[in-house]
């Protein structure tokens, strides 16, 4: 059963979407969807998509202009507050000179990466050009360590942290660009610009990957564009449903005021009848919490994570599709997963793809080639454990700035345990490789349901350790896990 009708398969709608008026209607519906989803930049987003719709031959160029526009006018992710604090602590000016300085750093970083891109595309045989992503990540690790450890102050310190902020936000976009540079026919720097934090993807994780992927998924005919845009509208409807579910979870499970979650209800603090479940963090920190509440808190948190990540990533993909790129969804039916590996693939597809491209395959093609099982396990843990940890540690560099390098590393212990269990579990699940059931008898349906329940239970419990904060040690989370099974430590 499908919740959202398959508009993209209706011939009359597909034909209508190719006409000028049809395009206008689709753009209007898209704008409405953004407004309903509280997308602050709906006017600019719709304008960019409209340009790409009416001038499809210039789509990639418009994407580059859009990325540049978003960088200049909506670059909040450059963490101005943090950089102002650093500048203030170092006795530096925090007015327009800081803005100029940060954009200067940005230009310098782009220039250096551009030179690197050129060298990689020329394919000389040196190690940095053969393994550009390894050098990129190692370079960033050194930069972060230098900013945290070197006994420097004043403008140099501001410059270093500025470079860290810029690199942390572009790191994996650069990785995809450098990977494309090594391709036979890479895009030039101008088109690459549109893939570096494209206007539809405000995240350090490159949703829709890089230029190579965009080339493959771009709509080349009016019919393709119409189908892709109808798929975008379909996805927006799904996002609205997910958004409603997320709000309902907050109102009826956690007890948030109705008016806080459903703006159209009005003002005041109306509380609907609710289960009064505490957040997972509160439950973990409350040893006296009744057992059913502890379980409810964990399950609600897991449900919220599933709905939240799907809503967030599908909104980005809907915008990308509306722009004419038929990208795969960011989260696709995770509840149907039959194995741990399949869940990881379905739950957060573009994160998994990043890990596979830059951690799994480099290990799998180089190491333990004579030992099939060890090879698969090593490559899987390289992706799901090591890559996962590297991504999150780099992304959350603010902990290093706030706490210092060593305390930030020590505080990362909980996430390290999470990533280690995740990597080993997926690796072992892949070694078992039980194959897939084909749709068939009731017995098989029951087996599928049981397999899915097992997968979901595992990830739900693992959610306890999926903590990106650094405030509490491992013991707190371990103790909560034991409490769930009536084991007191």
């Amino acid at each position, binding site marked *: 059963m499908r919740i959202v009708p398959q508009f993209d398969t209706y011939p009359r709608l597909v034909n209508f979407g190719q006409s000028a008026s049809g395009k206008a209607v689709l753009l209007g519906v898209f704008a409405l969807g953004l407004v309903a989803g509280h997308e602050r930049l709906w006017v600019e987003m719709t304008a960019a998509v409209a340009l790409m719709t009416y001038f499809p031959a210039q789509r990639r160029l418009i994407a580059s202009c859009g990325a540049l526009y978003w960088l200049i006018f909506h670059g909040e992710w450059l963490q101005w507050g943090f950089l102002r604090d650093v500048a203030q602590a170092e006795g530096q000016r925090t007015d327009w000179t800081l803005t100029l300085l940060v954009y200067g750093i940005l230009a310098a970083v782009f220039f250096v990466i551009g030179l690197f891109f050129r060298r990689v595309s020329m394919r000389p045989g040196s190690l940095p050009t*053969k393994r550009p992503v390894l050098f990129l990540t190692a370079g960033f690790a050194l930069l972060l360590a230098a900013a945290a450890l070197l006994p420097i102050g004043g403008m140099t310190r501001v410059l270093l942290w500025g470079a860290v902020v810029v690199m942390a936000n572009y790191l994996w976009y650069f990785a995809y660009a450098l990977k494309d540079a090594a391709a036979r026919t890479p895009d030039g720097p101008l088109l690459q610009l549109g893939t570096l934090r494209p206007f539809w993807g405000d995240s350090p994780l490159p949703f829709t990957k890089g230029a*190579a992927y965009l080339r493959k998924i771009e709509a080349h005919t009016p019919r393709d564009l119409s189908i892709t845009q109808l798929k975008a509208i379909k996805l927006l409807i799904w996002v609205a449903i997910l958004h409603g579910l997320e709000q309902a979870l907050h109102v009826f499970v956690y007890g948030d005021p109705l008016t806080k979650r459903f703006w159209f209800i009005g003002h005041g603090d109306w509380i609907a009848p609710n289960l009064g479940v505490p957040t997972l963090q509160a439950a973990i920190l409350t040893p006296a919490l009744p057992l059913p509440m502890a379980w409810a808190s964990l399950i609600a948190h897991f449900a919220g994570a599933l709905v939240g990540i799907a809503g967030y990533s599908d909104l980005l993909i809907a915008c990308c599709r509306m722009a004419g790129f038929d990208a*795969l969804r960011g989260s696709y039916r995770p509840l149907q997963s039959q194995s741990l590996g399949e869940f990881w693939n379905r739950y957060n597809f573009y994160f998994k793809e990043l890990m596979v491209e830059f951690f*799994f*395959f480099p290990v799998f093609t180089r190491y333990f*080639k004579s030992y099939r099982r060890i090879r*698969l396990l090593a490559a899987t843990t390289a992706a799901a454990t090591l890559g996962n940890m590297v991504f999150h540690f780099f992304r959350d560099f603010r902990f290093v700035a706030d706490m210092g390098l060593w305390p930030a590393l020590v505080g990362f212990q909980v996430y390290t345990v999470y990533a280690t269990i995740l990597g080993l579990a997926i690796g072992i699940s892949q070694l078992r490789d039980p194959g*897939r059931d084909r749709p068939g008898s009731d017995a098989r349906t029951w087996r599928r349901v049981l397999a899915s329940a097992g997968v979901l239970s595992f990830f739900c419990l693992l959610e306890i350790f999926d903590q990106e904060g650094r405030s509490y040690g491992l013991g707190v989370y371990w103790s909560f896990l034991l409490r769930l099974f009536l084991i007191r430590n």
Partner: protein
Amino acid sequence: MDDRLVIREFVQKLLKRKGDGAPFSDSEQLLTRGRLQSIDAVKVLVFLEEKYGIDFAETGFDQSQVESVDCIVAMIQTKGT
């Protein structure tokens, strides 16, 4: 047997195992369309190593190299022994 036929048969087997019996053309982008996943790309990689002796350690591996039957055949012709 012709390389193309061998590859087609292997890819068909991968799809069938996932319950996907729909037809596919040699140029269809199976990973981009979501019909195959990265774990299937790993199986293709191992198959190419074992059957054609291709070593990806030096050149690196990109999933787009095994995107379609056409891509795989082209790669065998370029890299194969």
